[in-house]
């Protein structure tokens, strides 16, 4: 499963207003073996939506707290748009209160990682996402 995911020429969009965090996520993805992966970045939800509408992506990794459009609003916008609603979204955020996790789950998040996190956690959540995608027969 993991091998298959890695072998694919995936396109991942990393959304965070902190350039350091975008770079950290990118580094971790490379470290996990996503070397053939095209990783692109956006600094808020609005810019992410513009990119998602203009080119196909296989996965979105997003922060919660961002100016203009937050991660939860981005998630809702993705789910509300016919062409994007099936796109897997992994939330990576410092927000760890119950209500926010519930809100993300209700909005249809595919995975939720609380910062600070480890590469192992990232791999675990990504594996789960790919497993579910494979099980549902939707090609990622």
């Amino acid at each position, binding site marked *: 499963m993991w091998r298959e995911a890695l072998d694919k020429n995936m396109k991942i969009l990393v959304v965070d207003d902190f350039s350091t965090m975008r770079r*950290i996520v990118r*580094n*971790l993805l*490379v*470290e996990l073996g996503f070397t053939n992966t095209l990783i692109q970045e956006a600094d808020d939800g609005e810019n992410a939506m513009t990119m998602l509408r203009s080119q196909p992506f296989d996965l979105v990794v997003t922060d919660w*707290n961002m100016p203009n459009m937050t991660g939860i609003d981005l998630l809702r916008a993705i789910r509300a748009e016919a062409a994007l609603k099936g796109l897997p979204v992994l939330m990576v955020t*410092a927000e760890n209160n119950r209500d926010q996790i519930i809100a993300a789950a209700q909005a249809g998040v595919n995975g939720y990682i609380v910062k*600070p996190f*480890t590469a192992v956690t990232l791999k675990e959540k990504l594996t789960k996402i790919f497993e579910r995608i494979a099980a549902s027969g939707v090609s990622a």
Partner: protein
Amino acid sequence: MNVSSPLAIDDTLPPELRDLLNSPDGPAFEQALDVMVRQREQRLFRALGQLARDLHDAVRRLGGELTQEGVPGIVADARQHLQDALEMSAQAAHRSLDFAERMRPQAESLTRNAGQVLEWTNGNDAAAVLAREAVAFASSCRDGLADMVLAQSWQDLTGQRIKKVASFIGTVESSLLELVRLTGALAGSEAPASAVKVSSQEDADRLLSEFGF
């Protein structure tokens, strides 16, 4: 008031009140009660007046400072310091990430080259021992670099807090300016350009004098 109605008259009441409650003279009772209430009201008014005067002085001082210097320098400084801290921490984190990104390919290349050496040797000579050591070192290097990359997320976590504090300072700053704007005339100093005059100094003084100040 019907003084004959059963009232709880106990020893804890002041003697003058007890006497009044026991008095059969209705009008006298009411008159005495009025005097007492008025005395209490006057004490309250005096306290309110003092409070108004203190606030008036404080706002005048603050208003003077704000209108002379615009936004208090210390608030602007505080925000700039936070912004500097945010930028410096981001730069420091990026430098560490630069380092990790530079070292990772080197560690990978060391692993590859040591692997080739192992293929050429019989596996027991000094070169093989060194090559195996190099492979182990490169591997621990990669793990260490990954940990270091992850550790840089402190910048994001502290940066988010810094941003929240900066935004809080902004809110305090605008509330302060709004307070001064609203009370600009009361403070007796030139209000900021957008100020709406709520009352004049005379109005304020007249109001205060109504309370005996």
